[in-house]
């Protein structure tokens, strides 16, 4: 598998505006969450009281407990799990779903595939560009989250922060690879945003429902959120290396399968 530098940089350039917009949204949201924490922390007792009045299942589904309001990392983890991984996942997965198929949809596949490169080189290069975009949005968000923690919080449990972000990265990578795979089976003329949002929100809510209702707790097993904890439970949050490795292997298998599908595809025009 080789890559083509010209195509790689062109892909980055082509996606830069979208990446900038989504990264700005995620960073702004991260800073907004962290900036409101000091106000909430001052109402710590009231919030804890409010929490105890919520149905236990509801709080569990949203990943809230007493710890949510007593530390900046607890507060951040609630939003990181619900919003930030979803936003990053939607961006990278929708880009993954279209990065190859867009050429076919827009008719530019005829131009690209008649150049002196193998299809494998083209698809591999596009996947590498996709990985770069994912790394850009993920590392920028992480950088500003670290900055925000230092500005708005004290006594940050960095071990929890690292765990959340490792798990977040694995989840976002998994969703991106899944989007690449399903898009390789669908018509390039489809709008992939609906299926992408459905997949990510669906996974999140399946896990939330499974956590909230013991009778359907088995539903959690089909959601990747089930395997990677994004909030501390009873004060504990550790990197689950077993699940991380399993989901990363699954992601690589999905990328490889998507790659193989694109190699066999006929460009009918």
């Amino acid at each position, binding site marked *: 598998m080789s890559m*083509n530098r*010209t*195509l790689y940089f*062109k892909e980055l350039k*082509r996606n830069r505006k979208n990446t900038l917009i989504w990264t700005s949204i995620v960073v702004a949201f991260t800073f907004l969450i962290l900036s409101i924490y000091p106000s909430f922390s001052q109402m710590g007792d009231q919030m804890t009281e409010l929490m105890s009045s919520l149905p236990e299942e509801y709080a569990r589904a949203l990943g809230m407990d007493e710890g949510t309001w007593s530390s900046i990392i607890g507060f951040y983890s609630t939003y990181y799990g619900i919003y930030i991984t979803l936003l990053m996942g939607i961006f990278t997965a929708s880009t993954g779903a279209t990065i190859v198929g867009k050429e076919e949809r*827009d*008719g*530019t*596949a*005829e*131009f690209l*595939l*008649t*150049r*002196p*490169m*193998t*299809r494998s080189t083209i698809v591999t290069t596009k996947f590498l560009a996709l990985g770069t975009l994912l790394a850009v949005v993920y590392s920028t968000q992480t950088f500003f989250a670290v900055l925000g923690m230092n500005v708005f919080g004290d006594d940050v449990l960095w071990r929890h922060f690292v765990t959340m972000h490792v798990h977040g990265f694995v989840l976002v990578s998994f969703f991106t690879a899944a989007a690449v795979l399903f898009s390789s089976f669908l018509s390039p003329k489809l709008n992939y945003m609906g299926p992408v949002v459905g997949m990510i929100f669906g996974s999140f809510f399946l896990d939330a429902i499974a956590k909230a209702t013991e009778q359907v707790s088995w539903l959690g097993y089909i959601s990747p959120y089930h395997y990677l904890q994004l909030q501390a439970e009873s004060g504990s949050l550790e990197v689950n290396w077993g699940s991380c490795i399993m989901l990363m292997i699954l992601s690589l298998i999905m990328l490889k399968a998507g790659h193989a599908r694109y190699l*066999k595809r*006929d*460009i*009918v*025009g």
Partner: protein
Amino acid sequence: MNAIEFHSLSKFYGKHRGIEGIDFSVSKGEVFGFIGPNGAGKSTAIRTLLGLLHPSSGSASILGHDVVKEGVQARLKVGYLPSEVDFYPEMTSRELLEYHAGLYGIEKGEKRIEELAQYFELALDRPIDDLSYGNKKKCAIIQAVLHEPEVLILDEPTGGLDPFMQNRFFELLESLNKKGVTVFFSSHILSEIQRMCDRAAVIREGKITAIEDISSLLSKQMKKVRLVLKKETELSLPDGFQNHHSTGSKHNFDYVGPTEVLIRWLAEQDLIDVVLTEPDLESIFMNYYQR
């Protein structure tokens, strides 16, 4: 070694036939026409040759390189002008052509891009999305020849070009052909084939129905006959007469056969006037289409 070879090449879309058993070759330095009505399989053959479609059976090669197994080497020497021009709308023509040059590993293509843009009067710094179809076509022509290919594959190349630009394009093709470039020219405009090509293949319903020298096609003993008789009478037409139309005493038909037979037959008629003309290539190929 031939420039292009098709060996029993077939492509099926499920049960639907695209092309079946295509088997011919194009010599190096030849200008070869590929003619057929819409939906005959011209584009399927070209797309399979360029690796856009996977053959169902058979094989094809360009300059000795199998288009499936050695597609990169084959495409390195090919310039392709598609019938429908779809480029990246956010790019300018210059960006597209520089991108194309980069993909071919051409480091200093700017001068050649400027020369070709000047020749075709193309504004290089306007976004492709803002260009007319004719200007997009000019950009497509430039990308097809920019990397100095040995084989040019042209699919309906003149669509969108005004007659002046068509002429410039043909002059460019003629000069490239003089330098040894092979041209595979797919078109349904027969006057273009007649002007440019040495030989042509006719494709119909996915199969090659004829491969002929253009000069031999034109020299076939087919005549268009227009005659006016003194009286309105029924004509008894012998073998070789086709497409007979009459209005009163005026008759029009095509004749394929020995000229002396035609002259002898005409001598027997009570004529006021007779006009014999050579058919154009279109009339000749219509015979193939109708077979």
